[in-house]
């Protein structure tokens, strides 16, 4: 236990980075994922094609490579600099990568959510004179969201765990700290692992429970 106790401040700092990465990327993925969903059901074939291609590519590429593309591709080669400070810049690049990857899954979930909304809903909206954007924004998407709260919860949990791969763009969060600690305190591997594993359980389990509760509470009664 010594290592975990003496290193307590650095561990909490590392987990704080995990939480920040997950929170910012979660908001980003929700926004981008919703936009992608709207594109995929839009009347314009160009939009549908672009969004479909994007989702296929992002969903089927290992996250390691997605983050490599954001770090080296977007960061180094496109010359996108989000901050003069390297650590801050890397943080934002990591959230871009995580968002790019996770939003594809959000899009897939939302699309299946739209499938659960009865056809009559959109037809009724159209007969009231609502156009595509209003039908989607006021009628279909709100119901779709309420249908896929549980899957969105699973995506958020996956995202929280996926932050461990942010080390590819040089962000040191919890998993990096764990690796360093295993190097330094080679005799306490078990305690270190269970300490960090517990940290992730503490982050992920309540998320799962909360979203399960929300999905039951907000389910559309039909």
């Amino acid at each position, binding site marked *: 236990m010594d290592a975990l106790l003496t290193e307590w401040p650095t561990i909490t700092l590392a987990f704080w980075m995990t939480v920040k990465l997950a929170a910012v990327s979660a908001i980003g993925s929700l926004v981008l994922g919703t936009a992608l969903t709207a594109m*995929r*059901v839009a*009347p*314009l*074939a*160009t*939009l549908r094609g*672009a969004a479909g291609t994007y989702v*296929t*590519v992002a*969903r*089927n*590429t*290992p*996250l*390691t*490579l997605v983050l*490599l*593309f954001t770090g*080296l*591709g977007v960061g*180094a*080669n*496109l*010359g996108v600099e989000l901050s003069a400070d390297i650590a801050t810049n890397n943080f934002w690049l990591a959230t871009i990568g995580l968002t790019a990857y996770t939003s594809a899954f959000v899009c897939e979930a939302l699309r299946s959510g*739209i*499938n659960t909304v009865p*056809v009559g809903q*959109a*037809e009724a909206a*159209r007969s009231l004179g609502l*156009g*595509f954007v209003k*039908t*989607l924004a006021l009628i*279909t998407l709100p119901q779709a969201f309420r249908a896929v709260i549980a899957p969105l919860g699973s995506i958020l*949990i996956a995202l929280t*765990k*996926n932050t*461990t*791969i942010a080390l590819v763009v040089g962000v040191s969060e919890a*998993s990096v700290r*764990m*690796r360093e600690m*295993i190097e330094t305190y080679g005799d306490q*591997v*078990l305690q270190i*692992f269970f300490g*960090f*594993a517990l940290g*992730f*359980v503490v*982050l*992920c*389990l309540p998320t*799962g429970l909360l979203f399960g509760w929300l999905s039951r509470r907000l389910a559309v009664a039909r």
Partner: protein
Amino acid sequence: MSYANLYEVPGPRGVRRNRVLGAVIALALLGVAYVVYVRFDDKGQWAAEKWTPLLRADVWTTFILPGLAGTLLAAVAGVVLAGLFGLVFAAARLSEHRWVRVPAGAVVEFFRAVPLLLLIFFAFFGSYVLIGGNVSAFAAVVFGLTVYNGSVIAEIIRAGVLSLPRGQSEAAYAVGMRKSQVMRLVLLPQALRAMLPAVVSQFVVLLKDSALGLIVGYDELVDRGLNGIAANFSNVIPAAILIAAIFIVINLSLDRLAHWLNDRRSAGAR
């Protein structure tokens, strides 16, 4: 699935407007692509000497194919063992006995909440403490893939079993089957069929996750392919594009397979 019910069928003016909008958007997307192309060109990423190595036969036989073999080997072992793990723990979580159900639930929830990277890392370095010997990188990777994806699959199968009509198990009991027979012969096979698409997409996740093996030095596609090629020709980006393309092709074929199985199943059901 078509979403045409979300908007009116456009009239002649609407069609024209949509065409113009579509063209504008296509141009905007092409513009973005062009900017990316130019910026990459500035950094010399399209230089021939960075791309031609990817066409050499020896690059494929030395780096890409062995890496691909490593990835597929870990993925296949992971799929088989995770499937087995999932079946066992799904059944255990559905057990009538509290002392089986609760520990099985705890195991599944634990492994679902811990990042795979930590699991692989732990298997590799913790094995010395736990079993007094080191395990190979392959074993560490397969362990991580198995317990994590196995736990997810256990939950998928459990959900599948719970979604079956009560009449299924009642009828099975009525013909005199024992509990284990009901589970093994009636419930699990049906649940597995119903949940096949979800199980296959989990296998796609598993295949992609095998790329994490590189942190313990397992010879897979990203480590051997990407890093090996880049060390020789310093072409990280072109090599990464190639490796990503290989992953996408494999995963799309898995997707196709899932659809095909699904179609065959629904055809059989009819």
